[in-house]
């Protein structure tokens, strides 16, 4: 029993970047915008957060820098799609490709440097048998991401602003007719989403691995995008999905550690294969997806036409 506690802790740790990114993308998508640039934003935030922390010695500053980097790229994405009406899918893809190249470029001089372990135990709670080891010896950002999930649930379903955001995602024309500024709302949603993806990227380079390697996000941005679909755009399901995926990732390491006679490369395929399998299970019922998906997802809206 006691040996499970570190596994749970590790799964939560591994699921946190997915949770942060997917929550941000969920808000984007609730406003009707799909940003395929998550991977690129996370990579840029990972390298910039890492660089800032190396230079200042402050992890919180690294997170702030990462969030700002994500938000900046998302702002650019918003300019292209929300104002200039460029195709959301193509622009997001461009952002991912750009982020991969630019982060590799910026990161050259940081390869091989590393930060010390930045995780710490919560006082008192961390000493509880089992639960302490499983839940309360994480980086503060882990708890923050959980709180964020709660805040988003409250925001979306209990506040007027959340209702407006959802209305914009369902029918931007109606929201516009009611006098809401669709472009500004979508911009805010995108900036928020970018900042969340930025936190997720910074978490990877500051807490999860504490170092920078080219391409270290390794598809987590895309898995986070898939998570919003798995979760049928519900934040609570994003949370469980993210930890489930964290668990799959940790399982691959654990099996390797136990000397299971399967090559490490094959085990490393598991999270990607799991993504495909879950996508298939969820997408099988086209009507269900259509029912839950924000109706204007992926479609641009021009208030002047």
């Amino acid at each position, binding site marked *: 029993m006691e040996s499970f506690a570190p596994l749970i802790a590790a799964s939560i740790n591994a699921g946190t970047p997915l949770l942060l990114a997917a929550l941000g993308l969920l808000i984007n998508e609730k406003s009707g915008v799909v940003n395929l640039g998550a991977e690129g934003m996370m990579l840029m935030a990972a390298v910039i957060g890492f660089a800032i922390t190396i230079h200042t010695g402050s992890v919180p500053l690294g997170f702030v820098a990462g969030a700002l980097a994500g938000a900046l790229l998302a702002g650019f994405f918003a300019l292209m799609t929300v104002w200039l009406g460029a195709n959301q899918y*193509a622009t997001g893809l461009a952002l991912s490709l750009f982020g991969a190249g630019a982060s590799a*470029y910026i990161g050259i001089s940081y390869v091989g440097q590393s930060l010390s372990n930045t995780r710490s135990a919560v006082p008192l709670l961390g000493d509880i048998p089992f639960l302490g080891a499983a839940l309360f010896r994480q980086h503060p950002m882990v708890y923050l991401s959980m709180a964020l999930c709660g805040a988003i649930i409250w925001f979306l379903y209990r506040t007027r602003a959340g209702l407006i955001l959802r209305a914009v995602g369902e029918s931007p024309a109606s929201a516009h007719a009611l006098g809401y500024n669709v472009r500004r709302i979508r911009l805010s949603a995108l900036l928020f989403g970018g900042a969340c993806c930025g936190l997720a990227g910074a978490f990877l380079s500051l807490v999860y691995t504490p170092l920078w390697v080219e391409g270290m996000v390794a598809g987590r941005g895309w898995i986070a995008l898939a998570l919003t679909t798995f979760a049928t755009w519900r934040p609570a399901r994003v949370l469980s999905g993210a930890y489930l995926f964290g668990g799959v990732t940790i399982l691959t390491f654990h099996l390797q550690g136990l000397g299971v006679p399967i090559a490490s490369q094959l085990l490393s395929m598991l999270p990607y294969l799991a993504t495909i399998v879950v996508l298939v299970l969820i997408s099988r019922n086209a009507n269900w997806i259509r029912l839950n998906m924000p109706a204007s997802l992926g479609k641009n809206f021009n208030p002047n036409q």
Partner: protein
Amino acid sequence: MLRLEARAHPSTLMAWCSPLLAVLLTVLCGALLFIALGKNPLTGLAVFFIEPLKNVRGWTEVGVKVAPLLMIAIGLAVCFRANVFNIGAEGQLVVGAISGGAAALYFDDGSGGGPLLITAVLVAGMLGGMAWAAITAFLRDRFNTSEILVSLMLVYVAQLLLSYLVHGVLKDPDGFNFPQSKMFSDGFLLPILVPHTRLHIGILLALGAALLGWIFLSKSFAGLRLQIGGMAPLAARYAGFSSRKSLWTAMLVCGALSGLAGVCEVIGPIGQLTPSVSPGYGFAAIIVAYVGRLHPVGVIFSSFIMALFYIGGELAQSRLGMPSAITGVFQGILLFALLACDVLIRYHLRWRK
């Protein structure tokens, strides 16, 4: 203030000019980037865009990069025209490289090789790419699963599979434990077009693919059916065309061409299977396809520009001491610039007080 005003009709002129404008904008951004990095922008741009084309060797090296980019981008043009967002061509390329490479290793018993066996190896590569693409097509067709996410996940799976194989069964037993296959013997390598360079006949295969792609998309009824099936599934059903058929055709064509690109790399410039067979050609080809306006003739030009970026990046690395990742930065900027310029197809820019 500058304002965008909708045009009554999309501008044909701008549709033609936008890719050119995008290239100019990218060059301009490149110059700014060089200034920001403290390099002379003129020197930087000269290294990037002129140096590679100064001699025969440079031209042939550009040709070596054009071959895979052009093949994949033609496949992607077919996909995107059918409204199939296959963005996992990189994975299809890797599996093509694996299956073609494995076939070459299987046939290569020291007794030669020759045109027939090379053809067999190329076909094996294409079949591998098709099989990988078929997974995405099947899941989308049968379970309505997003082809964007599935094809992308399969890129990571393919890369891990390649890594597994070159560390395992396909590893050269005499290779001092390096994770790579043995070198293919000369009889299995693609013939060289220009002596003493690396330019192989893959470039001819790529141009052939572009020609076939053009005939298929612009001249054939099947191509028309494919595009209608993708763009307007309801209209297609009314006309008796199947959108399922468009999906399968597009994915299989793209898989075959990406697989061909992969196998041409391993029995061309690389000459063996290594843990990494492509510097992201499958992703760069997405930009190539868009910048080429999803038209085979346009794609020929845009693959040339993208190949220039690759060579320019390598030269910037050796001459200016810049990391080769600058190629990726240029690629991203080019796609952004194109998407921004495309706005002018549908809108006027007007000054308003």
